């Protein structure tokens, strides 16, 4: 039981459960999930469906943060990817042709990958501090997205494109399937193969891992490119869900939510270790929080205050120092804590 209580993800899970229960009080049948017309419906499904882009962005961000970096440009990449895909589709003669839509999607994803690799090049190739390297693309990328859409909102009417963010496949929302696939692939690559270990060692000490024979530059390039790709997929989902691309507002400030999700999930910003399941949990907490704000009717002006409150509570509960000081739990010496935590992550 005490091992269970001490698990890294115990407190985030408690917060998520508490938020969901709060919803149950305000909304009847909040937990009910049903199948209508062969589609899965329910508030819980909606949380995962609308949270899918955030989960994707946060997954990419997790790997970047694990190397000790940060990527501020994901919001702009989200906007660019959606804008480019919608532009290509709106130029198609037949917007419902699967081949044309597929071409547009591949093009948008390829560009996202290139933009991510560009960040990686600035960080690993030139050696610019990640926050500034990605700030360049964050500023310029927002301009690029507006250039693609010409400052307008591009609307498309394409059923194959609508599938990505708003459609269903095998009774499940398609977005959830994409997230599950990306998550499974990432988990396999980082936890079953040595890649995760390489990423963590670069985050722990890039110079030492280079001397140990790891291509630190290659690893860095890869995680930034992956982060760009994830943001690109998220951009397609967001624009497909509303069948339009808005260069100004799509993905605005999603980088902050994504970083928040990663940190709530127990990945330290200093790098060196990461938790994919924690990130998913963190993203779900943020999405549930958004849903809760609507369902319990918090007035729009105080939304941010409510968010600040919940974020503070989550972080305080997660902080071992806070729990020790406030709940007077068995006073383990503080110096023993980091070592114990590190052991736990190796087995995870």
């Amino acid at each position, binding site marked *: 039981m005490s091992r269970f209580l001490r698990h890294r993800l115990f407190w985030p899970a408690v917060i998520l459960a508490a938020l969901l229960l709060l919803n149950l009080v305000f909304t009847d049948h909040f937990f009910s999930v049903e199948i209508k017309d062969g589609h899965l419906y329910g508030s819980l499904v909606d949380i995962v469906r609308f949270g899918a882009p955030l989960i994707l962005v946060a997954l990419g961000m997790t790997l970047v943060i694990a190397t000790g970096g940060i990527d*501020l440009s994901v919001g702009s990449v989200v906007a660019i990817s959606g804008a480019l895909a919608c532009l290509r589709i709106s130029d198609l003669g037949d917007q419902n042709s699967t081949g044309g839509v597929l071409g547009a999607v591949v093009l948008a994803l390829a560009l996202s990958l290139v933009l991510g690799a560009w960040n990686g090049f600035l960080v690993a190739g*030139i*050696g*610019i*501090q990640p*926050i*500034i*390297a990605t*700030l*360049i*693309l*964050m*500023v*310029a*990328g*927002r*301009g*690029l*997205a*507006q*250039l693609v859409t010409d*400052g307008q909102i591009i609307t498309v009417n394409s059923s194959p494109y609508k599938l990505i963010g708003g459609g269903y496949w095998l009774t499940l929302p398609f977005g959830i399937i994409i997230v599950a696939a990306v998550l499974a692939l990432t988990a396999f690559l980082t936890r079953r193969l040595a890649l995760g270990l390489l990423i963590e060692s670069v985050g722990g000490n890039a110079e030492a891992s280079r001397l140990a024979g790891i291509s630190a530059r290659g690893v860095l390039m890869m995680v930034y490119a992956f982060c760009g790709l994830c943001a690109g997929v998220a951009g397609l989902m967001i624009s497909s869900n509303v069948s339009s691309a808005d*260069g100004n507002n799509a993905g605005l400030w999603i980088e*902050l939510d994504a*970083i*928040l999700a990663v*940190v*709530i999930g127990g990945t*330290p*910003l200093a790098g060196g270790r990461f938790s994919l399941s924690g990130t998913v949990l963190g993203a779900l907490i943020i999405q549930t929080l958004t849903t809760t704000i609507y369902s319990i009717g918090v007035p*729009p*002006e*105080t*939304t*941010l*205050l*409510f*968010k*600040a409150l919940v*974020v*503070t509570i989550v*972080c*305080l509960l*997660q*902080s*071992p*120092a*806070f729990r020790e*000081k406030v709940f007077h739990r068995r006073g383990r010496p503080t110096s023993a804590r980091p070592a114990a935590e590190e052991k736990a992550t190796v087995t995870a």
Partner: protein
Amino acid sequence: MTSTTGPLAGRRTLPRKYIPVLVTAALFMAMFVAGGIRYDGFATGQIILNVFIDNAFLLVVAVGMAFVILTGGIDLSVGSVVALATMISAVLLQHGWPAYAVIALVLAIGAVLGLGMGAIIHYFEIQPFIVTLAGMFLARGLCYTIGTDSISIEDATFTAFAQSRIELGGGMWVSPSVLITAVVVLAAAYVLHYTRLGRNVYATGGSEQSALLMGLPVARTKIAVYTISGFCSALGGLLLSFYMLSGYGLHAVGMELDAIAAVVIGGTLLTGGTGYLLGTVLGVLVLGLIQTIISFEGTLSSWWTKIFIGLLLFAFILLQRLIGARRR
């Protein structure tokens, strides 16, 4: 060990630690000269002074940010605290409070917010990024709770601050805000390089563990830097309300990134422990000069402006990096 001694006079070779700042200064001059060649009426002293006038609030905020980053932390709440400061001053002045009481109260609120965040960061060992992100939501949320519309300021003292000019001779002038900023920068430089608190800031940023083992007051230092940053943000907010003569919840959105960029462009490492305040001043000047060049360029649409800012920032950082690296 990070050295905080004064300029090493009499040495022939330039100490390596000054190179980032010098490279930044040289590139700034190059950018200014390039602008002077390209645009008529650009290469005047007043252009530089205008950069100071238009960015006085950013400079004050960046000074506070420099303290935080030197200890290895980060403060994302500054932009929201600036907005909150403009909002609180506008509302209180509307209710007929005396201007100086408002100024004192706003500065106190900023310092207390910073103090609270610093205490949470230190005592509960939560990452600064997250605590100040929550602080950012909190301050921005408070702005919207106070009011969602822009409130104009008509108070006589604030208007006097906004409109008076201090002539420097030769047709050049600065606003009172620039003088306040100059005082802040000089005071901060003195504190950082010539006082015990300054040495503690560098030591904590260099290695918190070592600073602790040396018996330095790490707790007090860490809480102090966030308090300073909160205070500077509130002061920046006051300067912004002199500049805009309005309080609005959407003022200074994204300003935290400008402040961080200015500090980092000035050669300060985000990991803490290295950097000079002069670099931060240069960083703000670089960002301001980029804006000036864009306004001289004139006909850019809003998206080309963003792309152009990104390109200039990239070119600047690339050159800074290449020149700095070659000298090693």
